């Protein structure tokens, strides 16, 4: 390669490598702020601020949803399978909100460690399948067999 072009190639490579390194360091330094939510384990450990709005993310604990019969109030527990946090929310929940599914709740922690949510979002997972396949998987799981697609 022509020495001039070789030199330019080195400069171009340096531009890419150094700018990537710079952005990488910034992202690493800001990693806590880039996370959209705190997992329940961090909230229970006191790593989340208590005096301002935070987001809590995890799975809705099976059998934990309690709905008020007269109001829109709902309480449920969110877990990351290490710790759990109770959430109280008054409002309309997204359609995909369900037990055992992902959720992100925004709000403030009260003195008892309950998150008083102002917004609850459903976190959809990466699984896409037809209803028949889902039913087949559920049937197999109920029979205690390994869930294997036909």
């Amino acid at each position, binding site marked *: 390669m022509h020495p001039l*072009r070789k030199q*330019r*190639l080195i*400069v*171009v490579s340096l*531009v*890419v490598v150094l*700018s*990537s390194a710079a*952005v*990488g360091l910034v*992202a690493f330094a800001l*990693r806590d702020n*880039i*996370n*959209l*939510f*705190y*997992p329940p384990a961090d909230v229970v450990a006191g790593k989340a601020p208590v005096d301002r709005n935070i987001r809590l*993310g995890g799975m809705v604990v099976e059998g934990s949803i309690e709905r008020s019969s007269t109001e829109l109030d709902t309480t449920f527990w969110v877990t990351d399978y290490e710790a759990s946090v109770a959430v109280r929310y008054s409002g309309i*929940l*997204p*359609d*995909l*909100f369900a037990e055992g599914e992902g959720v*992100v709740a925004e709000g403030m922690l009260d003195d008892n460690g309950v998150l008083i949510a102002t*917004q*609850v*979002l*459903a*976190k*959809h*997972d*990466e*699984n*896409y*399948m*037809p*209803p*028949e*396949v*889902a*039913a087949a998987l559920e049937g197999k799981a109920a029979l205690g067999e390994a869930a294997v*697609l036909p």
Partner: protein
Amino acid sequence: MGSPPWFFRFSGAVVRWLLPLTIGLLLLGAAWGLLVAPPDFRQGNSYRIIYVHVPAAVVALAGYYVMAFAGAVSLIWRIKMADVTMRAVAPVGAVLTAVALVTGAIWGKPTWGTWWVWDARITSMLILLFLYLGVIALFEAYENKTAAARACAVLSLVGTVNIPIIYKSVDWWYALHQPASIKFTGESAIDSSMLHPLLLMIGAFYCLFALTVLLNMRAELVWNHREASWLKQMVRNV
């Protein structure tokens, strides 16, 4: 390969078969995805926006590498055709990124319960849109085309760091956006009856990208060489 007359003739031949191929793949993929593929067990039919959202996002990311690579070629070898390529990719990439963001918002409202959330995936995708728009604006900001191409090449190259960030954002940080359903190693998290039309649509979007970039390049060449005798002769022969 850098010769405009040669490229003009070559791209003309490619467009002639790429155009029907792209239209065919898009129609087939859309019909398969929208009519034949089964509904999702939780989302019902609203998941079908995946057949536009994912292909647009995938090609928007890949297209950025095409633009950045053209930028590197332009800086190192000073090939005019690389400048033309960069300039042709930017608006296509910007539109694809915008389509991915808009379809994502439309899907997010019924699925998550919100149009927009500032998580790592969505924010880095918005930065990609600004990078594409920045390249377009920078090209227009210079009188001198060579200086414009050099500035755009540097911006494109610096922006490449964003592509792996977008791709890995859902794995590196807690985000609302789900991780990838299509896995290169191991079984995909999307059923094959839904995956096959999706892969077809991704292929169709790659063809659409190539087609629109080639047409953009041809339009740019026609403008740049509007006084050239080879072009006049070629137009007369058509």
